[in-house]
């Protein structure tokens, strides 16, 4: 369904630079036309034909899960925008600094009419290089936005030292090792790094290795191999733990974690599906996002899945290639997740 309108969600704590990024996207000569959905308090100085103010009304679906929240206003606005189909190529949703990205994302999975016409492209989070560390300490919203992101811009890098930057990156990696990280000043970034990411496209779930393992690859050139000596703030106020792996600083956030699981033995679909469905039904509130590529016994195809809280989406993707090792892999990002239980449950799904 290539004719679905891609939707980019811009998040970031107050003052991080969301509006700067939005204006940059709108003003660059790319020939794309955007419909922009801004929060009702933030519509200052946006120069675009189609700007809609949103109320950010979040409500719970009556499906027995309290984490299944959606944005009612988005459903209404996207329905209205679709009447002007052909007048724009993509939608950008700018959220307030205090917004949780999950209800926005879940809206695209829960509502039929929205899901039929629009698709979530990526959650892009702008972080303030100078203040992020403190916000991670005192603002759960900021941590959520980092944990949920597909792309993170560490903005205002001119205001901090290189050592501080590496520290911030390590903090972000401690929460979300899977997002693309970029250092920016005034949100200057090539637009293909934030638009057209297909981060929620099942067909594009090719690469779920943590980004910090990809050092040296073209995309993550900001990650140096520099040794980080002596800045291991051993008595951090938020009780984070940090340690060095081969020179790369590594933090574990106390509450927000991510981990990956893999299995060389093919899985049994009759065990896996009941397990994962039960897992997100029970623990979905803690699991912000999950995704995976699976090898089922006797199945020549790769199976891919992703989830946001309790909502799961999955499909057969393509046949495994002969030279591909048929390893099943899944990653989870969440808050206070029962990691051992999830690992054990996954391990029991082997055929």
């Amino acid at each position, binding site marked *: 369904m290539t004719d679905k309108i891609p939707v980019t969600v811009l998040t970031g704590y107050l003052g991080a630079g969301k509006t700067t990024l939005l204006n940059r996207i709108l003003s660059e000569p790319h020939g794309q036309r955007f419909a922009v959905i801004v929060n009702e308090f933030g519509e200052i100085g946006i120069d675009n034909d189609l700007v*809609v*103010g949103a*109320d950010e*009304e979040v*409500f*719970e*679906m*009556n*499906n027995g899960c309290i984490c299944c929240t*959606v944005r*009612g*206003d988005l*459903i*209404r*606005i996207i329905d*209205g*925008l*679709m*009447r*002007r*189909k052909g007048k724009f190529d993509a939608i950008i949703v700018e959220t307030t600094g205090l917004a949780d990205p999950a209800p926005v994302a879940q809206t695209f999975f829960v*509502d*039929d*009419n929205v899901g039929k016409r629009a698709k979530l492209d990526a959650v892009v989070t702008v972080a303030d290089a100078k203040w992020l560390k403190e916000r991670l300490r005192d603002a759960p919203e900021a941590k959520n936005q980092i944990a949920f992101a597909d792309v993170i811009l560490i903005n205002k890098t001119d205001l901090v030292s290189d050592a501080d930057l590496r520290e911030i990156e390590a903090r972000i990696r401690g929460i979300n090792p899977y997002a693309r990280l970029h250092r920016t000043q005034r949100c200057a970034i090539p637009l293909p790094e934030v638009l057209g990411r297909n981060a929620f496209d099942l067909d594009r779930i090719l690469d779920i290795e943590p980004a910090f393992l990809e050092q040296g690859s073209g995309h993550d050139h900001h990650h140096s191999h520099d040794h980080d000596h002596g800045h291991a703030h051993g008595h951090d106020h938020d009780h984070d733990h940090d340690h060095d792996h081969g020179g790369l600083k590594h933090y574990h956030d106390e509450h927000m974690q991510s981990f990956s699981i893999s299995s060389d033995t093919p899985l049994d679909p009759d065990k896996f599906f009941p397990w994962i469905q039960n897992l997100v039904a029970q623990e979905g509130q803690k699991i912000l996002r999950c995704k995976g590529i699976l090898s089922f016994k006797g199945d020549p195809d790769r199976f891919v899945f992703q989830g946001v809280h309790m909502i799961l989406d999955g499909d057969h993707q393509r046949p495994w290639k002969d030279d591909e090792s048929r390893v099943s892999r899944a990653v989870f990002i969440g808050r206070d997740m029962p990691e051992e239980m999830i690992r054990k449950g996954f391990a029991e799904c082997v055929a």
Partner: protein
Amino acid sequence: MSDARTDTASIVERIQPVAAGGAVVAVHFLGDDAVFVLGEEALHVWRDGEERRVAVHGGAILASAGDGHRIVTGGDDGKVVTTDPQGASETLASDAKRRWIDHVALGPDGIAWSCGKQAFVRSTKGKAAAERTLDLPSSAGGLAFAPKGFRLAIAHYNGATLWFPNAPDAKPERLEWKGSHLDLTFSPDGRFLVTAMQEPTLHGWRLIDGKHMRMSGYAAKVRSLSWGPGAKWLATSGASQLVVWPFAGKDGPMGKAPKILSPSEHRICAVAAHPKQEVCAVGYEDGMLLLTRIEDGAEVLARAPGAAPIAALAWNASGNRLAFGTEDGEAGVIAL
């Protein structure tokens, strides 16, 4: 249960095609003129085979309502526009902040519209009455006037509000039910209020005592509701069968099963009950249009499948003309 319905009686040759010129989002009759509401800017008026366009909005048309004598539309240009049978349109109101007009409603004594968390009414009886405004707990999901008097129901999160705009001191009545309530409709006898929810379910209240009615089992959100003659039944979209709830008894559908008619492989997206007979026009996702008799489920094929979803359906008041429009802008009038 074949979708082809090759053995079904057919009146497909009676379709008079209409070149609507854009996606049709609704259709209403003004007398015997079929008025197709387009997704953007204009109404397309069909009068005995002659067609013309009436420009009404500077952008998307987000909502419309008609009562046979006039049509009211709300747009993303912040305007509420009324159009009369002569095709003369007039701007009734313009939102000061140019907010979207999300919903509109027409009642016996007034016109209503909403922008986000505010509902507005204007009386159309007597002297030009002042506009009245009601602030809501959350954005309006839909508006409907009671069949008699000057009373507006507003659907929103966690229920609906009943408002008597002419009694500004009276506190609006709140009907509670958890969840997001969207379209809503009074039964034409005024006894029941039914909302379509974000979930694939309907919720109803018996107004005399506030008793709840849950009507569930749909595959998709219910977006089209239509009352049969005498308010005896309510036909609904949202499933791949026509779901008809019985409302004849004093308890409405409470404790009763709906009638399930005209099954298909495709979902129903629009329904329109005949104004006089026990018949419902049923529009499917694949463009098929059936006329289904409620009593025994007998069918007449009014339009063959194989096109875009039926987005709009309406009968004229005497019930001898049926108009339809699709998401792709195909449209027609069927004379019966």
